[in-house]
């Protein structure tokens, strides 16, 4: 019963073009090297303030640094949109854990003598 027709030669092969997936600003991207780790480096090295009397120029510089960082991380979004998206990500459980970790890392290390004994 198997003829040539069943081999599937005659059937037209449909070629559906896949759309290029749109890059998302998600946790993975935010935690990648270009994301928060890089931001931590930047803030450590490049943030310098002139202090009293220069409040506005200091903050302007601060905002510009963040804008350029965000532009590198996710060029698609405008600054305000990008900030809103990141802020929203910050409510996720995993992000909150991460944020706590980062804060804990910077805490002065205190040795607890009273470690629970087995």
């Amino acid at each position: 019963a198997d003829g040539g027709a069943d081999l599937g030669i005659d059937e037209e092969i449909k070629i559906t073009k896949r759309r290029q997936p749109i890059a998302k600003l998600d946790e993975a991207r935010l935690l990648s090297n270009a994301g928060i780790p890089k931001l931590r480096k930047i803030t450590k090295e490049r943030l310098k303030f002139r202090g009293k009397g220069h409040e506005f120029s200091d903050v302007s510089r601060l905002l510009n640094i963040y804008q350029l960082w965000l532009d590198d991380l996710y060029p698609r979004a405008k600054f305000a949109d990008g900030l809103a998206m990141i802020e929203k990500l910050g409510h996720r459980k995993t992000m909150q854990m991460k944020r706590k970790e980062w804060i804990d890392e910077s805490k002065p290390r205190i040795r607890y003598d009273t470690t629970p004994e087995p």
Partner: protein
Amino acid sequence: MEGENYKRDPIDLEVRAHVYSLVSAVGGSSADLDGRYVLGDDALACLKDLKKWLNLYDNNLNRFDVARCIADANLVRGDLLEILARWREDETDDRMKYKTALACVELLVPLTWPFEIDDTRMTVNHHTHIPYLQLAQVSYKQAVLHHDDAKILRTAIRVALPSMAEERSERSARDEGIIRIVLYFLRNVALISQPSDLAQEEDEAEVSRSATIDAFHYQDVFNFLLTMSSSIGDEFNQQDVMILETLFHLLKGVNPEKLFMGHDTFRTKQTDEFRDILRKEKDMLSGYAKHAPTRHNRFGTMIWVKREEEKVSTVSGQNVIGNADATLIKLDKQKKWNKPQQRSRNKTEEPLTNYEFDREIPLNNSGRKHLRVFIEEFLDSSFNPLFTHLRKAIEREAERVTPSHSRQYFYLVYWFLRAECTRREAIRRQRINQNQHDTSITEEESFGIVASVLNQETFVLLNRTMQRSLDEKSWLDLNAGMKCFTQILLTVQEMANSPNDEDLEIAENIQNRIFYEQTTHDRIISILRNFNPSQHSFGYLDACTELSHVFLRILERYSRQNVDLQIRTRRRIRKKRQRQQKPVNREDGGGGEEDEAFGNSDDDIQEAQRASSERKFDFTRFVARFTTQPCVDTFVHFLRYYRELDPEKLKRAHRFFYRVAFKMEQSLILFRLDILALFYRLTQGPEPLLAESNSQKAIFKEWEELVRQVFRRLVKKMGERKETLGVELLFSKIPQTMYYLEHGFEREITKVK
């Protein structure tokens, strides 16, 4: 084919023929009598037939076909109004004319009836006819207000007079019906307005609010309303809600402050406003000129922005040279993608309804004058009886009261209280101008004339309504409730400043009662916390920020004066009890679950065991609940409109942020990039708050100082903890880590054993 379909008459030809023949049989202008209107032989029967058509065809089949045909046939302008105009003042006893006039009003009421747009009952037929009919109604209103040689509204009222003259006990159901119909006619006339989404055919000024007020004044409608509302309760009973509706549609959106300004003050105010607007425009243009290109548009400058790792971005245009801020702003502007906004149906539909009250309606001079006279008389004679009567009806949930009535009630309470406060202010100013040092208190100066809405019953009703509309998410109701509550607080504060001892004592009492309930405090916080830009309109945002501002301010003052303010809290005592009852279960592992099950099974008992207790009020603790992220976010959202806010609103936002950052020492909450960027834009950006106009100069200075202080703190904190704060700037802070971020060390927790 399609075109033909489109052109085909949507109405059944036979219906059209019937209606047309009836309309032409009503009457027409006579060739013999210089074109005067002459009634047809069976005019009365024809009018009744038309009414039957409207009722039996349109109403029963849920269509608008007959109404559309009547609009096409020009019945209102050509016949009904002419018939009413024929009924002269001295012919009151003419039975026949009275009957035809009544029949005309009976037809006018359904023809001018507002369209309720309710998705569940709408059909294709409705959607085809409503826009046409809305425009037709506007032209009806125009014709009614500006009839050439007769006072139509006055004639309509004359129809009701014989029934009104009857004693209430003597009045028949038919008499009540006639009064009702006339009131509905007045309401409809007040309500109809040019729909904002349709092209206008009439001159809009002819159907504007001012024109309505003028007509109401000249045709004695105001006197009629005053008569009805001052004797409500004894002579009239059922009519209160219709008067309420008429007043609401007459007053919604009118600014009472402008109403009570003297003619000269109003003139200067208008001049000032105009000057401010011109300055604003000049400011805008000069702001643009500052950054505008100095050469022609094909000059073709292009610059590089060098970035780390040997990367560059390019920006074109000469205006970005030598200005890092401008470069980055332009870089940002070039991006094409916008984050999709959340949209909700609820919000977009709101402004289209007839119950919208947040849009300000301007009045012209004569409108202002006439309305002012009416409002003063109304406050003096009718406010208390009408509003007491209405409150009772709403409380009783009388049959005639619908949910929208309670909203209108609260809006009007807000409106009249505000009007009364402004009036007192105006009188006081006038006295000072005339150098009268006479401080003796006259009768009219007491707050007695608005006392009917400042009693415990009203507060109870208001609290209940606010809570219910909050629970049911009916935001327009809540908006009206918030406005009303804010205004009550302001009025009470005014009373507390009054020289009258009696007023003082009453104010003290009211404040005590308002602030005594902790549920009120909680509700205000939860309203502010739960603002959601995709659900709520700007008017709502404005109302909820104002409410919390006023509430906080007055409560602060009050709790400072009365150090031992007690509040009633509802506390659950069941937990303690359970713990006492079942100490054994807690010991073993499964105890928790059992406890839970136990708790769920007798919910009723829990409810009963919820007891109220009193405790001392702690203002700082209360404010601490305001200075949390959700509340701050609401105010940040409010501030985003800074270009459109007037000085008073900017001040409101300023005071809140000042409280957060400095009084409560919680500036950390503000250290978030979008808030910082907003603050920066507000003071330094390309579109700053306009500092030029006189009225805004002072508030701009205050804002600049506040922002500078916040930035100073930020810079200081960043200097100390660059790395951690650098990341945390992106996010809303986690409560547990806030203490560390603020102080740089953990809070020492001492456990109480």
